[in-house]
């Protein structure tokens, strides 16, 4: 299969013709050479082998798939899982006797199995949620489930951010089968609430459980009602995407019309009319699990396993995981998000930056305004305070002045009093002096008289 130089030159001239031939060779097994009738030489490059290489590597590594089943007890979850994989993966939990209380919280249990088929290895993890919706008060019974899913995302995020990324186990939940009870009336409030909280975290595939309860007319009516309610509540269930081929598309469309799938599960083999079928035996007939007329089990199985398993994993990786990662890394807590998952790839990073800038500017403006307001308020306060203190001081000043005047007056009075006293005291002193003087002269006179007398 060597190429001659002529061929390599002529390839450019041939253009599309040889390319289409090459595509046809790729569709085959990629090991044929095609003789170009115009050139009479082999026009085969060989990268048609690429998918095979990928395939071989993948097969060696093995595939992983995690399936979560949620629904009230008694809706046939375990039976359906067993029927899907045609083994008893999962023995139904022993029905607790009347003396055992049913646990109040929802448990999340994982069981892991390794299945092999035709050389391909699949590690299947089934996440079960016993106790969901069973108690009398079921508020927040979805919390353990959301926590579990987010925990898985976080584990993957951490392992992605590690330095050594050799083995990255993918434990994220790829699909969630939600079992709706066959009431025939529509979704219960619990169903709606649960799906609203989980549709942006995991691929939800709603199923109608125990579909052999309903006649075909009841079933179609019920499905219509469910789809209507899902649309009303803006719940995003997993949409099987269109395939590439025309025929695939047509088939897909027919199958997609059966959503939500009405399923019946059973692993017991029965014999009717000589052939062996899996089904449920009633006194009035046998409901076959693998009969498209009876239920949509085959459709579910095909879409889940045979055609869309890889797509489920891709959507989980590209949409749900990226949502989670975006929220986590942007620092917004997961429970705070008022905006439900916008697909991460849908927003232009520049636009996001613009928006952030705008937000930031707006925030700054607001802060500025606030600060100004605060400033004005403070100024007013201070002014008021000063005025108050001024008035206060004034008052005090006046008071003191008055007091001073009063004292002054008092002092004045005292002084005048004192002067008067002084005057009177001086007066009295003078009088006394005079008196004494008079007395003194008198006594002197007397003495002189006496002396005169005595002189004789």
């Amino acid at each position, binding site marked *: 299969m060597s190429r001659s130089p002529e061929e390599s030159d002529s390839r450019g001239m041939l253009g599309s013709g040889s390319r289409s031939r090459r595509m046809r060779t790729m569709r085959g097994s990629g090991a044929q050479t095609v003789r170009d009738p115009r050139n009479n030489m082999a026009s085969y490059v060989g990268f048609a082998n690429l998918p095979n290489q990928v395939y071989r590597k993948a097969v060696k590594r093995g595939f992983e798939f995690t399936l979560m089943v949620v629904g009230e007890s*008694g*809706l046939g979850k375990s039976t359906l899982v067993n029927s899907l994989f045609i083994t008893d993966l999962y023995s139904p939990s022993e029905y*607790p006797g*009347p003396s055992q209380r049913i646990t109040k919280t929802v448990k999340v249990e994982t069981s892991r199995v390794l299945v092999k088929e035709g050389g391909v290895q699949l590690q299947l993890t089934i996440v079960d949620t016993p106790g969901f919706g069973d108690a009398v008060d079921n508020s927040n019974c979805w919390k353990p489930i959301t926590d579990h899913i987010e925990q898985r995302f976080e584990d993957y995020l951490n392992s992605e951010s590690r330095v050594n990324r050799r083995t990255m186990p993918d434990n994220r939940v790829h699909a969630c089968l939600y079992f709706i*009870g066959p009431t025939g009336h*529509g979704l219960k409030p619990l169903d709606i609430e649960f799906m609203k909280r989980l549709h942006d975290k995991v691929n939800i595939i709603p199923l109608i459980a125990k579909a052999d309860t309903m*006649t*075909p007319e009841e079933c179609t009516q019920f499905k219509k009602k469910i789809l209507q309610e899902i649309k009303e509540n803006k719940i995003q269930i997993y949409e099987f995407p269109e395939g590439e081929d025309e025929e695939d598309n047509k088939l897909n469309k027919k199958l997609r019309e059966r959503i939500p799938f009405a399923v019946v599960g059973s692993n017991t083999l029965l014999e009717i009319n000589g052939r062996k079928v899996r089904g449920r035996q009633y006194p009035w007939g046998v409901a076959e699990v693998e009969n498209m007329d009876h239920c949509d089990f085959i459709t579910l199985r095909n879409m889940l396993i045979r055609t869309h398993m890889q797509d489920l994993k891709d959507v989980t990786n590209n949409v749900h995981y990226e949502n989670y990662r975006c929220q986590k890394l942007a620092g917004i807590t997961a429970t705070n998000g008022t905006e439900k998952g916008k697909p991460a790839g849908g927003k232009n990073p520049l636009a996001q930056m613009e928006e952030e800038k705008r937000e930031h500017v707006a925030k700054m403006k607001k802060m500025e305004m606030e600060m100004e307001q605060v400033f004005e308020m403070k100024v007013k306060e201070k002014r008021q305070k000063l005025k108050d203190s001024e008035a206060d001081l004034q008052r005090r000043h006046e008071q003191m002045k008055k007091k001073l005047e009063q004292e002054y007056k008092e002092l004045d009075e005292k002084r005048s009093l004192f002067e008067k006293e002084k005057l009177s005291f001086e007066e009295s002193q003078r009088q006394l002096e005079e008196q004494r003087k008079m007395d003194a002269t008198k006594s002197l006179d007397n003495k002189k008289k006496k002396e005169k007398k005595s002189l004789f």
Partner: protein
Amino acid sequence: MSSQQGFTLSGKQFEALCAAFETADVQKRGSIDVQIVPKLVQDVLGSSLAPSEKDAIRLRAESKAKKGVLYFADFVEVMSETLQTTTQWGKLTTTLSGYVGIDTLQEQMRKKALKRGFEFHIMVVGGSGLGKSTLVNTLFKAQISRRSCTNESEGTIPKTVQIKSVSHVIEEKGVRLKLTVTDTPGFGDQINNENCWLPILEFINDQYEKYLSEEVNVSRKKHIPDTRVHVCLYFISPTGHSCRPLDLEFMKRLDKVVNIVPIIAKADTLTLEERYAFKKRVREDLEFHGIQFYPMKSLDEDEEETAINQALREKMPFAIVGSDREYQVNGKSVLGRKTKWGLIEVENKNHCEFALLRDMLIRTHMQDLKDVTDSIHYENFRRERLEMHSEFAGPTPPYHEMGESNL
């Protein structure tokens, strides 16, 4: 011989009693042992005495016995007291020598009842989508339930438990029945179902209250309209595992207030083995929690009744499929559900137990349901109400005045 209460025995009765006494008194002491009195009485009166009556006789004998033996005079007294309380006189019934015409009593009663008509009140409780309305329509072969009466859009689940009653008068061969069906949409549908049984409890007690107030009225009506709930059909969802906590909570609270008949709804979900296992588990659950459903064991009076009721109890809860559509099978028109894999016939005993339920509810036990409601549940309610009232009213007045007190 006459007792103080003035009950005179006829000559023939007296002779029969003497004969019985003598045959029992083998030792000719003039007295018989107390232990053999009940058996003796049974021989004389015939064996169709209820166990409660037998107990009463034994008590009476023991109260009159001196030193464990009963003398003839006391024996006669015991017998006369017994004769007053029962109409089962066995060998002591007086034979008529010709046709008197007492048997026309039956006809007279019948005519009176026919004129007045009968009343019956059924309540259906269960989560939405379990087939309650369909079952009621199937039971009475008419469009009775509220779904068919009003043009309600299907599937609007109400936010609180509502109580909706619909009344119809149906007639068959001259017998008129006023049938009231009470539905409880919204029961058990919310996320938080705490206390969803309270509106229902209130409704039932309201009906008792209405009846009681009519009864204690000074001037009573000739016929008090009976709106009390006679039977409550509780629909258990066919999960295949066991009763749900909500079911147990509800039934625990209501089995002392009304007759509860548990039913497994939408039984076409279960195969026969699953059905049998599920029923067993449900019965175990109910027994474990002490829930007494109708027919109650404690009320069986004689052997015949016990046998019938026991057979019924072993088949309960009945696995029901309801349908109001008709299909042709072998030329006959039957009610059923047609699926791609077969036709489920509602009245076929091999398919489901609807026929058993219908027979019990309508054909054999309807009057008994009314009687139990009247004599047991209503009396319980009345006693509680009067006791509660007398607590407030002070010391209880003497018995003969109580009936006249105007509550």
